[in-house]
């Protein structure tokens, strides 16, 4: 038995001092290899008595396992040491800049998406129409009689036309889309029509091109209370806060009765806070669709009725997101787009919020 202890101690010392994998492997072969020392000692078992075998057999097996375990442990230690040594030289400057920044989405598009989401929840589809319109769809069908002063309220852009031909116009509002929709579809109708609109006007609060969202609901039994309800639901959802509103009578040729809606606001420094405060700001026009308009589109005003509303998208975008000047919206200044633009991964929705 003392032999076994001596052998074990001998190899333990050798393994301990091995400083590389190959030397360790040599030790392993010398001890545990086919012709190794332990093997030879095993061969001696055959010459022993049964009682001796009963003692020496398990002892030799134990010796073999102990040495194997020591070799394995040392091997792992040497490998780890080698890896650690190698990794010391594998460095990178992690402060080096990587990747390119993503671009941004335009706030007007963002706001139109937000509106589509809010109105979609109330069952409105999104309808579209052409920018270059004829007089019928932009004016006459909307109950602007030819030559009527109401047409002066729109600073209309006209296209050139051959002598004797009617001049086309750039639509002054998105209301022609409601005409196209009513002519082509049967009630019940619930649409919003976002898009570009044009008026021959340019200053700090007017650009010759701007965006409007028009809304139209035609059904049986739709009254002004619904109009008020829809728009109140909309503004609070849009501004993401409870917004106090005021409805005032107004005049539009295509609605009767007509109204404008104001929201409460206050100035805090240079910022505008919507929803509270002492002042009123007009944000949209609306009303019950005029019977003449329904008739012009082949809808029987004795059977169907409904409401329409229209609002300036760019202005609502400014009010919500704080852009100070309308004209910057369409100037393509990279700094402006980066600052006021939106993360492209964002998709406005009611579950996670609009922005």
């Amino acid at each position: 038995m003392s032999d076994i202890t001596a052998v074990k101690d001998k190899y333990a010392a050798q393994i301990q001092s091995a400083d590389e994998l190959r030397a360790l492997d040599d030790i392993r072969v010398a001890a545990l290899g086919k012709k190794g020392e332990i093997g030879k000692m095993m061969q001696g078992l055959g010459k022993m008595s049964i009682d001796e075998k009963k003692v020496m057999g398990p002892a030799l097996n134990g010796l073999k396992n102990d040495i194997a375990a020591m070799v394995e442990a040392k091997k792992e230690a040497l490998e780890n040491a080698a890896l650690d040594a190698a990794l010391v030289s594998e460095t990178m400057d992690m402060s080096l800049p990587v990747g390119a920044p993503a671009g941004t989405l335009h706030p007007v598009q963002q706001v139109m998406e937000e509106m589509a989401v809010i109105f979609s929840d109330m069952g409105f589809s999104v309808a579209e129409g052409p920018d270059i319109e004829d007089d019928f769809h932009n004016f006459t069908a909307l109950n602007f009689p030819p030559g009527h002063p109401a047409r002066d309220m729109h600073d209309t852009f006209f296209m050139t036309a051959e002598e004797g031909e009617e001049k086309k116009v750039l639509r002054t509002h998105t209301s022609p889309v409601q005409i196209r929709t009513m002519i082509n579809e049967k009630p019940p109708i619930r649409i919003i029509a976002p898009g570009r609109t044009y008026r021959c006007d340019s200053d700090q609060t007017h650009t010759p091109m701007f965006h409007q969202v028009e809304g139209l609901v035609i059904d049986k039994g739709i009254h002004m209370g619904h109009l008020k309800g829809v728009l109140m639901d909309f503004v609070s959802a849009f501004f993401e806060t409870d917004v106090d509103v005021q409805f005032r009578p107004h005049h539009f040729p295509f609605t009767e009765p007509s109204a404008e809606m104001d929201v409460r606001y206050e100035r805090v420094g240079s910022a505008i806070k919507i929803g509270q405060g002492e002042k009123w700001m007009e944000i949209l026009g609306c009303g019950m669709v005029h019977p003449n308009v329904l008739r012009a589109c082949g809808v029987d005003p004795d059977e169907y009725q409904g409401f329409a509303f229209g609002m300036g998208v760019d202005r609502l975008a400014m009010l919500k997101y704080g852009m100070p000047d309308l004209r910057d919206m369409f100037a393509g200044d990279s700094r402006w787009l980066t600052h006021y633009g939106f993360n492209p991964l964002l998709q406005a929705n009611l579950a996670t919020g609009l922005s």
Partner: protein
Amino acid sequence: MKFTLSWLKEHLETDATIDQVVEAMTLAGLEVEEVENPAEKLSAFSVAKVLTAEKHPDADKLRVCTVETRDGVKTIVCGAPNARADMTVAYAPMGAYIPGADFSLDKKPRKIRGVESSGMMCSGAELDLGEDADGIMDLDSALEMGTPLADALNLNDPVIDFEVTPNRPDWLGVDSIARDLAAVGLGTLKTKPIESIKGSFPCPVAIKTEVPEACPTFVGRVVKGVKNGPSPQWLQDQLKAIGLRPISALVDITNFITYDRARPLHFYDVAKLKGGITVRMGKDETFEALDDKSYTAKDGDVAITDESGILGLGGIVGGTTTGCDEGTTDILIECAYFDPLTIRRTAKRLGVNSDAKYRFERGVDTGFLLGGMDLATQMVLDICGGKPSEVVIAGDIPTPPPSIKFDTALNKRLTGLDMDDGAMRKILTDLGFNVGKDWSVEVPTWRRDATKGADLVEEIVRIHGYHNLEAVSLPPLPGRREPTATVTQNRTRLARRALAGRGLSEAITWSFVLQDHAKLFGGGADTMLLDNPISSDLNCMRPTALIHLLLAGQRNADKGYPRAAQFELGPVYGGTQPNEQALALAGMRRTETERHWAGECPVDALSAKADALAALEAMGANVANLQMSKPTGDYWHPGRCGRLQMGPKNILADFGELHPRALKALGIEGRVIAFEVWPENIPAPKKKKASKAKSALALSDFMPVHRDFAFIVADNVAAGTILKAAQGADKQLISNVSLFDVYQGKGVEDGHKSLAIDVTLSPKDATLTDKDIEAVSDKIIASVMKAGGRLRA
């Protein structure tokens, strides 16, 4: 339309404050734009009495005054030549802001040549109250010391400016404003009735209208023996308060009635008339008008004429030849009705505006022709004296507007409001409608905008108050909800995000461009020109969204921000018809080199390809199966551009580098790459399947095998052709072909290139044998040879 609170109170008995008036107006649909009280900027000033005025010991032109003010007795040094003892003056305390001089007084007494002065005595000019700067204001000595100056001068009278909507021309007279405010309960209407004035002799001027459509009625009367001069102070003050300049009693009377009753009038000097008055259309006649311009009346314009020819444009502007002046003794009063459309056409053509035109083109009260005449006569008699003739009515007074048969249930149907009949009847009656027992509603002559039941509903709910409408959320539509966005809307939403994710920022730019620029990009036809552009460089509808993006990119570079990368989703115009407008997704990247520690990442024509493909792929186009060709527009670099299409006609995208000549013409420096994608050209997804479930996934148990090939092809053979040929060699087995090397140089003959590809073979039924692999390799080589390649030795 401007009016003062005191003017309103001539027609409305009320104790309402200005704030209450403004709120009532707003809620009744009279949208107040501005309220200005001249008293506000005078609030610091008050009446004071000069006790003593002595010459300044050290200055000949200065006086040292002791002044009794509401702040006590003050010493004030004054330079005005008219300062004297016992004078009643306008006193400004220390620290007051002097509006006419735009400065503030010192807050502490100030020494003037050694004498301390506390405050100031003001001239009219210093207070913005007149042009008299020669001395300080010499006020009525009856005024009490300490009276606020605004009260002393009767200036505490707010001026209200509001928007008159085109349906309510009657609001251009203060009496109608008062009527609406009385109806909402702000007070009692007290417009004085007008008494009919009988003439004492026949009208000596013959009057006829030959154009009953353009001028249906001309009511005329002569007043003899008038004396024209300055109008009385009250009238001058009333006109000045709303910004009108007093001229003479006769002119001021017409202006007053124009604003008081929305009733324009015209006075002629009878001595200057030759014969009678005839209203007819113009015959290319020119006249000098009272606005110091000359106008030519054509056959569409209403001319007021006498035997000498044209005197003025009826309802728009009178002429100088028959105008009233200080020597006028006999006048002809015109109170007429002109057709609104005729007035409007003429005024538009001639670019002329006047208070009369503004009212006639909107329609004046046809029931107030005789009333207007009598009111004018009465004022002339009161102010200028004289003797009136009988009234002549040329033409016929227009018939009143038709009555409306009102179904009271319409009110609830359109507004949801439960109102009893009595309340509705009261509102309409207050507004001047005459409601019969059977709800046949007579419309007042000044309310021709009311033609049907909906109009009456508007009146009822407007006066009842929109704030009383109950807000009701929209009931949900029955049935299952379909998505509300269209395919294109959903697709472009994704494409915009894909492009922004690639570093392009979304812009929105004008739909109009400079015609010359449009021509560079395949547009610019004369039919696409605007008749009245906002500016000469935005005169043509754009054929592409690229133009403004390119210009914006250059502007950014000029400001020190190079490498702009922007895109836009918006309309482009091939013609003026609705189906000639298309939706385009266009983008550009400037190519200024950006140095980077890891090496430059060049922006070139293929970056544009990657952008276009990213957009198309995001929109669900089958990008693997698109054909490549060349764009037709000559704004592309001839050797570095491409077009992606499906079949021979359906173009999905153009991309590449822009032609340097086109860029130069736009003033763009350096190279720019761009793309244009047409989302609407991507085929709609196949008809809705019954289920959204995807097809079953078949996973092969067998290892894919890779084989590399190198082919030699001529330079002009597109790599895409070779890749496609290899891919098509065995559609079952070949799952992918990738290009991993393009080589030119040693070992490859001139004019040729070597393309190295990695073909992935994905067996589905059994592991591939060497023989199988050899067979498919042969097919690949044969297919590529057909496409113009040969295996590299």
